[in-house]
C-alpha cells in the first residue's frame, strides 16, 4: 500500500541529503568537540559550520545559536532560563493560551515556583492581539513568549508588532518558531525577538536536536548544567551528527523557501476548499490567510477525530486530530477550545499538514476517500439525528 503522509507538523522524514551529511560523524569523524586532538577538532569544525548555516537561515550571528536536544528543550531553556536570570527584576511572564505544551507546562512549573503567568486569550482565528500584550505588561514583567505560528491551526502571529512592544518596554521576548523556521521567512531582527526556538525534525532534519537563538546580551540562566559546552550556556557532549544534520537541513530549507511556499499554498487551498465543498457541516479552523502554507485544520461535525484518523490509516493516509482520545488525556485540544470551539467540535477536528513530498495526486486521493469515511462514521453517530449523512 502506497502511504500518504500528511502529518509533517508532527514530524518530517529526515531528508536523505541530511542523513548523508550526518553519516561521517558517527564512526569516522566521531570525536568529542572539546578535545584538542585531530578527531576533536574535526568535530568542532563541523559543529561551527552547522552553527553558521543555522544562523544564516534566521539572520542571526553564529555565537547567538545554542544547540539543544529539540524544540521542547529550547522552550524550557527560554522560559526557565529567563525566569531564573531575571528573578531580581520581577516574576511576571506573559504568554498566550495556545502555546505548545513545552511552553505551557514550563509556565505551569514556574507558576508553582512562585512566578505569575498571564495567558493571553486569542480571537476566533487564533490571533493574539498585540494591544493585549501591551496591556498585560506590569513593572514585574520579565518575559513575553508568543509562538510564531501555531502547530495545530497554523495561525501566524503578529510577532514583529509584539517585538516592538517588548523592546519599548525593555522586556525579553521569546518566540517558539518550531513550526516556522525553514518553512516561512524567519529573521530574528525583523521579528524583534531575543529568544527563538527551533527543532530539527520539523524541517527535514533529525529528531533530538534543536536550537535556542539567544540575542547577544540576553540574560539567561543555563537549563542544562554541567560542562562548558556551547560557551558555558548548554552543557553535554554535543550531538555532532544531529547538529550537522540540522545545519544541512537549515541550508536546504533556505534554498527554495519561496517556491515551495507557493506550491504548498496551492495544495493546501485545494484540500481545504475540496473538503469544505464536498462535505457539509465542515469548517476551517485557524486564520484563512495568516496561515502556515502547509496547514489544513478542519472541524467535522458529529464525528470524532481519532475514528476518522484510524479509518484513514486503514487506507494508508496519515493525519492527526485535536481530539483528546489520541493523546491519552481526556481533554480536547486547548488550542481549539481557545478559539471558541465547543468540545464536541474540537473532538471532531482533523489536521493535515503538507510537506515537500506531498503531491497533487495525494491531495486528490484524500478528497476522494475522506467524504466516504465521514459518511460511514456519521451514519453511526448519535449526534446526526436530524442530518442526512454525507
Amino acid at each position, binding site marked *: 500500500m502506497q502511504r500518504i503522509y500528511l502529518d509533517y507538523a508532527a514530524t518530517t522524514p529526515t531528508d536523505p541529503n541530511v542523513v548523508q551529511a550526518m553519516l561521517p560523524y558517527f564512526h569516522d569523524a566521531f570525536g568529542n568537540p572539546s578535545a584538542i586532538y585531530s578527531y576533536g577538532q574535526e568535530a568542532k569544525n563541523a559543529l561551527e559550520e552547522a552553527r553558521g548555516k543555522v544562523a544564516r537561515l534566521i539572520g542571526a550571528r553564529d555565537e547567538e545559536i545554542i544547540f539543544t536536544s529539540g524544540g521542547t528543550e529550547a522552550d524550557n531553556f527560554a522560559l526557565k532560563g529567563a525566569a531564573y536570570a531575571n528573578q531580581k527584576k520581577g516574576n511576571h511572564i506573559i504568554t498566550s493560551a495556545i502555546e505548545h505544551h513545552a511552553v505551557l507546562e514550563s509556565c505551569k512549573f514556574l507558576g508553582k515556583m512562585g512566578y505569575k503567568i498571564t495567558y493571553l486569550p486569542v480571537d476566533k482565528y487564533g490571533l493574539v492581539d498585540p494591544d493585549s500584550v501591551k496591556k498585560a505588561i506590569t513593572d514585574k514583567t520579565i518575559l513575553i513568549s508568543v509562538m510564531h505560528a501555531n502547530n495545530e491551526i497554523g495561525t501566524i502571529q503578529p510577532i514583529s508588532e509584539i517585538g516592538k512592544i517588548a523592546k519599548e518596554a525593555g522586556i525579553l521576548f521569546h518566540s517558539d518558531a518550531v513550526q516556522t523556521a525553514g518553512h516561512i521567512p524567519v529573521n530574528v531582527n525583523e521579528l524583534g525577538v531575543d529568544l527563538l526556538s527551533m527543532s530539527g525534525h520539523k524541517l527535514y532534519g533529525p529528531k533530538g536536536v534543536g536550537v535556542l537563538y539567544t540575542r547577544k546580551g540576553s540574560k539567561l540562566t543555563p537549563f542544562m548544567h554541567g560542562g562548558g559546552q556551547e560557551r558555558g550556556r548548554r552543557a553535554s557532549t554535543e550531538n555532532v551528527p544531529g547538529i550537522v544534520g540540522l545545519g544541512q537541513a537549515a541550508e536546504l530549507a533556505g534554498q527554495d523557501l519561496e517556491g515551495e511556499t507557493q506550491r504548498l499554498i496551492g495544495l493546501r487551498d485545494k484540500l481545504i476548499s475540496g473538503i469544505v465543498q464536498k462535505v457539509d457541516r465542515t469548517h476551517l479552523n485557524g486564520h484563512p490567510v495568516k496561515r502556515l502554507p502547509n496547514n489544513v485544520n478542519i472541524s467535522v461535525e458529529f464525528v*470524532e477525530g481519532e*475514528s476518522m484518523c*484510524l479509518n484513514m490509516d486503514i487506507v494508508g493516509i496519515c493525519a492527526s486530530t485535536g481530539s483528546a*482520545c489520541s493523546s491519552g488525556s*481526556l481533554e480536547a485540544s486547548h488550542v481549539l477550545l481557545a478559539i471558541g470551539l*465547543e468540545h464536541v467540535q474540537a473532538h471532531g477536528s482533523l489536521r493535515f499538514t503538507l510537506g515537500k513530498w506531498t503531491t497533487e495526486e495525494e491531495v486528490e486521493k484524500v478528497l476522494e476517500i475522506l467524504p466516504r469515511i465521514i459518511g460511514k462514521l456519521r*451514519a*453511526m453517530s448519535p449526534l446526526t439525528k436530524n442530518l442526512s449523512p454525507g
Partner: protein
Amino acid sequence: MYSEKVMDHFNNPRNTGDMENPDGIGHVGNPVCGDIMELYIKVKDDIITDAKFKTFGCGAAIATSSMVTEMVKGKSLADALKISNKAVAEALGGLPAIKMHCSVLAEEALSSAIDDYLKKNPTRNTDALRKLHKTPHHEETE
C-alpha cells in the same frame, strides 16, 4: 496501538444504527471527554433479543460498543448486568491503558439501557435487578 480484534470491530462494527421502538435506551458519555454512546435493546421474557448502538468516539469507543452489543444478545437481563468493562476489553483482545475508560462507558451504556427498560417495565424482578445494576463492578486497571 489497537489489537486486531479491536480494529476488526472498529472497521466493521456490528449492530450499528437506529432501532425501531427499542425497549430500553442507554445514553452515556459527554462531549467534554469526546465519547458519546447510545445503546438500544429489545427485551423479551427478561432476555435481550437484540441490541444496537450509535457512538461518537474514538476507535476503542466504537469497538467496545460493537463488542458489547454482540455479547449481550441472547443474554438474560441478570447475566447482561454482570458483563464488566474488563470482560468487554478482554473479548477485544485487550485495550491500551489510556483507552480502558471506553470499556467502562460501554458497560455503563448497557446497564443504563437495561435500567431504562426496567423503568418502563416495572413489574418483574425490578428491585433485584436494579440492585445488581447499582453495584459497580468495573475496573479501570492500568
